[in-house]
């Protein structure tokens, strides 16, 4: 006999109607928020006060499209995350008490019918809401004469696709528990568990593996962290149209990712149905309602607690006493902390499962197993069983290499040149081979107050990030050295310094702030330049004030050419590892602007240089850029002048400050006046820039 209200075997109209009427506040809230976010927001964008300040219909259309699509992608994501969970909790709330599950399961409906009717209720609500919102938005746009069905379609796809995934995922999570509050907890945990565990393992490895710096978030972890993946991949794009002075061709990228997650949502819905059929009614009230998942829960919570809170405890307490120490005793302490918190997690989970605090005796086997797993993991990672520490990639697997070498100053560059990459691979291997010596030096200098850094030794770093065609391998090595080693070509620091000065690295470093722009692009599209210079220096170490001197394209080309000749001659990056190397860098940065493909001057490159850039210095002086009033001053010189007074190129002392003050000749802007005291005589001298001196002052 068939239930008379079944439209077909797997749906029940009575239940659907009851769901719609029973949880109406939730549906209304969802609909109200979308109404505000889509049609109302569109109305405000198109008819509100901001609409009066646009210059053209194109600009208004730009704002309208951007508002709509960002609502669908970014706002839609968080709506889906929140309401997906709330929908699932409401529609399957009957599973969480014995009374309600008893009633629902005693009705003449198969489990499939119950599940699908409940699931489809959620789908009907969010699809109806989104369709109605889209139609209202279309009406608003039509009223403004800016109806854009394509963008409305994209908006609908983004909002609906994300909602489908997160709703289905929340339903899947809800099937595993018999407690209302556990459902959102599982949902949040499963959304983040891959990312958190990966970050925890990387963090742990970073503590104990020499040079290990993590490898970013692997692709598979990103896919298993849907919020992260959709947040980073599903984005709005547009093109700038200079003629219209607004963005055009608004689009959404990442629809493929969205499609995959939507399909995953369908798969989760099917999975949830399978779990629902396996689920026993008597598990209402249980934290975990599926037998095999109980084991997963016990050990999963234990392991996660060990990896996250265990490390946190270790870093909170022991890091204070063993900072930068990577010895076996520190590893042991870290593992002990992880085991302790792992056991807390395990027994906490056991208490939730057993609904009792008396679990210590009955759960001892599981506790031992948890501790063994944590110890094995800790020892495995800490002692580098898998050879992560000694791994140097093969040159053939490297797509590109990003390097950062620094001490007092630094150079960052991304190189693809095979020969240069091989040099870095050799340096990488040498750094690994020098592990013991480096650790010994760090330990020696760590608390050695008699030899402070900067006197006889210093500590720099070499960061290497290999792009292995999709995967990333990151390493970061400290480099503790004595200055004398800079004279030995085979020393690690000399090899690092040589690579820092390598013309290929320096040229790549020029463009490190811009993706897909080369030095050739800069040379071809160069439009102008400028040089920073020090205008005023305040005494007593209170800093300085600067200005810029612009120069046109032809001059900029000459300066850039000189700069590149210096770089090609290996004069760049030489000061990085030198004693007080930062003092030897000019305060005068050079900035080169260049035009984009649309001939608009939009991009710029800022470059620091040193007195060793002889060609550049000569060109700047020859072209009248660096003058006495726009002196080339190193950071050391500026600092020295500021701190101690003394010679100040380009600025002239005028007279005794007291006399000038008495005669009323101190400029009104006293704060901009350079005053310093002669260390020999103690006399205070008022100094003004040569350019700013009045004829009277010049005569004086």
């Amino acid at each position, binding site marked *: *006999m*068939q*239930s*008379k*209200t079944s439209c077909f075997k797997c749906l*029940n*109209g*009575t*239940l659907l*109607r*009851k769901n719609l009427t*029973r949880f109406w506040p939730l549906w209304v809230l969802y609909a109200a928020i979308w109404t505000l976010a889509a049609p109302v927001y569109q109305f405000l964008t198109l008819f509100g006060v901001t609409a009066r300040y646009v210059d053209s219909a194109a600009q208004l259309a730009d704002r309208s499209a951007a508002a709509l699509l960002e609502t669908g992608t970014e706002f839609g994501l968080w709506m889906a995350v929140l309401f997906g969970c709330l929908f699932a909790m409401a529609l399957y709330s009957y599973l969480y*008490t*014995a*009374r*309600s*599950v*008893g*009633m629902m*399961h*005693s*009705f*003449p*409906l*198969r*489990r499939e*019918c119950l599940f699908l009717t409940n699931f489809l209720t959620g789908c009907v609500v969010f699809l109806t809401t989104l369709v109605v919102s889209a139609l209202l938005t279309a009406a608003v746009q039509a009223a403004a004469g800016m109806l854009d069905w394509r963008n409305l379609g994209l908006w609908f796809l983004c909002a609906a696709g994300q909602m489908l995934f997160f709703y289905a995922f929340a339903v899947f999570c809800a099937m595993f528990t018999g407690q209302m509050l556990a459902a959102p907890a599982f949902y949040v945990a499963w959304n983040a568990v891959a990312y958190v565990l990966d970050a925890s393992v990387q963090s742990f490895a970073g503590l104990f593996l020499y040079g290990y710096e993590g490898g970013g978030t692997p692709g598979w972890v990103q896919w298993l962290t849907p919020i992260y993946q959709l947040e980073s991949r599903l984005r709005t794009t547009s093109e700038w149209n200079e003629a219209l002075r607004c963005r055009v061709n608004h689009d959404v990228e990442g629809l493929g990712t969205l499609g995959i997650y939507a399909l995953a949502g369908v798969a989760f819905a099917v999975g949830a149905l399978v779990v629902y059929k396996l689920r*026993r*009614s*008597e598990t209402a009230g249980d934290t975990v309602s599926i037998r095999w998942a109980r084991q997963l829960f016990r050990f999963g919570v234990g392991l996660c607690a060990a990896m996250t809170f265990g490390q946190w405890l270790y870093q909170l307490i022991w890091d204070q006493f063993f900072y930068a120490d990577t010895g076996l005793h520190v590893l042991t302490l870290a593992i002990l902390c992880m085991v302790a918190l792992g056991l807390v997690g395990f027994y906490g989970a056991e208490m939730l499962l057993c609904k009792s605090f008396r679990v210590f005796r009955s759960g001892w086997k599981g506790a031992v197993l948890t501790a063994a797993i944590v110890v094995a993991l800790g020892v495995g990672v800490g002692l580098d069983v898998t050879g992560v520490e000694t791994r140097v990639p093969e040159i053939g697997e490297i797509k590109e290499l990003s390097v950062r070498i620094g001490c007092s100053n630094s150079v960052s560059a991304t190189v693809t040149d095979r020969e240069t990459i091989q040099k870095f691979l050799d340096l990488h291997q040498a750094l690994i081979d020098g592990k013991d010596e480096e650790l010994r030096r760090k330990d020696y200098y760590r608390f050695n107050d008699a030899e402070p850094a900067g006197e006889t030794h210093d500590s720099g770093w070499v960061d290497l990030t290999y792009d292995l065609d999709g995967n990333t391998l990151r390493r970061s090595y400290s480099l503790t050295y004595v200055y004398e080693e800079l004279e030995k070509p085979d020393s690690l620091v000399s090899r690092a310094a040589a690579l820092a000065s390598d013309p290929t690295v320096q040229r790549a470093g020029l463009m490190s702030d811009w993706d897909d722009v080369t030095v050739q692009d800069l040379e071809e599209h160069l439009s102008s330049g400028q040089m920073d210079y020090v205008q005023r220096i305040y005494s007593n170490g209170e800093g300085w004030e600067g200005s810029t001197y612009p120069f046109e394209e032809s001059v900029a080309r000459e300066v850039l050419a000189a700069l590149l000749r210096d770089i090609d001659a290996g004069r760049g990056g030489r000061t990085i590892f030198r004693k007080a190397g930062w003092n030897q860098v000019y305060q005068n940065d050079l900035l080169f602007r260049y035009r984009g493909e649309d001939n608009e001057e939009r991009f710029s490159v800022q470059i620091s240089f040193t007195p060793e850039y002889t060609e550049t210095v000569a060109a700047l002086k020859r072209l009248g850029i660096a003058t006495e009033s726009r002196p080339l001053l190193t950071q050391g010189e500026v600092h020295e002048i500021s701190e101690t007074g003394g010679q100040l190129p380009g600025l002239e002392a005028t007279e005794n400050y007291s006399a000038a003050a008495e005669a009323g000749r101190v400029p009104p802007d006293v704060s901009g006046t350079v005053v310093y005291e002669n260390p020999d005589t103690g006399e205070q001298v008022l100094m003004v820039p040569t350019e700013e001196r009045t004829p009277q002052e010049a005569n004086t």
Partner: protein
Amino acid sequence: MIEVNGAVKLFDGFAALDGATLSVPAGSVYGLVGPNGAGKSTLIRHLTGIYRQDGGSIRIGGENVWENAALKARVAAIPDDWYYFLQSTVRDMMRFYRGFYPAFSMERYEKLKEVFAIDEKRTIRRLSKGMQKQVAFWLTLSCMPDYLILDEPVDGLDPVMRRQVWSLVMSDVAQRGTTVLVSSHNLRELEDVCDHVGIMDHGKVLLERSLAQLQDNMVKLQVVFPDGVAEVPADLPVLHTSRVGRIHTLIMRMSAEEAEAKVAAYSPLLVDAVPLTLEEIFIYELGGADYAVKDIVL
């Protein structure tokens, strides 16, 4: 006909049903009795398709109950803790039930409205416990079930209403041949309505008989032995004895005729056979299963 054959149900290793077997003839009223924790409610939840057994079979009308929507449409149940939606009125719940049970009769619903005299527009949660139970009967009987399964159905009902609902149930049995399985601790009431009884303990059905068979199978004798016989002779197969003055009360598992014949061998001064109540049968049957009223002085 309701047939449970070797049903097993484990809860974390504990056997709530441990090979339970029972048979409820069609059109009968079957009383399921047993001590707390015997497994009665668990068995009922299997019969209503809420639980799935780990072993054995649960069949109604020759069909398995589990996931059998067509069969469950003919089975209605009132659990001991009847559930309703918090915001629902009686009429809301009626619509809900009507949507699931194809045989739901609005005509009967309207008739029962007069019997129960509850305002159908009132929110159920605002009704008293007894009135909520009446609503449960009202809706369940309106479903016109072929099989009615009741778990502690009259708890909370006043004596008049108890008689009323039993009367309704019995009229269904008489007029429509409804098969009723009822679990209750109120053995006095069961005695009035049941024609078959099953006694459960530790997840098993210890015995099931018609009430007449059950009463025929056990007898209570009041005996006065001749002078010189102070105690009940040891070779008499008695389940329980007690004594007030010279009168011994003997409970024996046999017919009255057999019992009188056995006692006659001791030349009693007085022998009187008294029929046992269901409650006494329950107590003395379970006494053999280590569940007896203990004479404890606190």
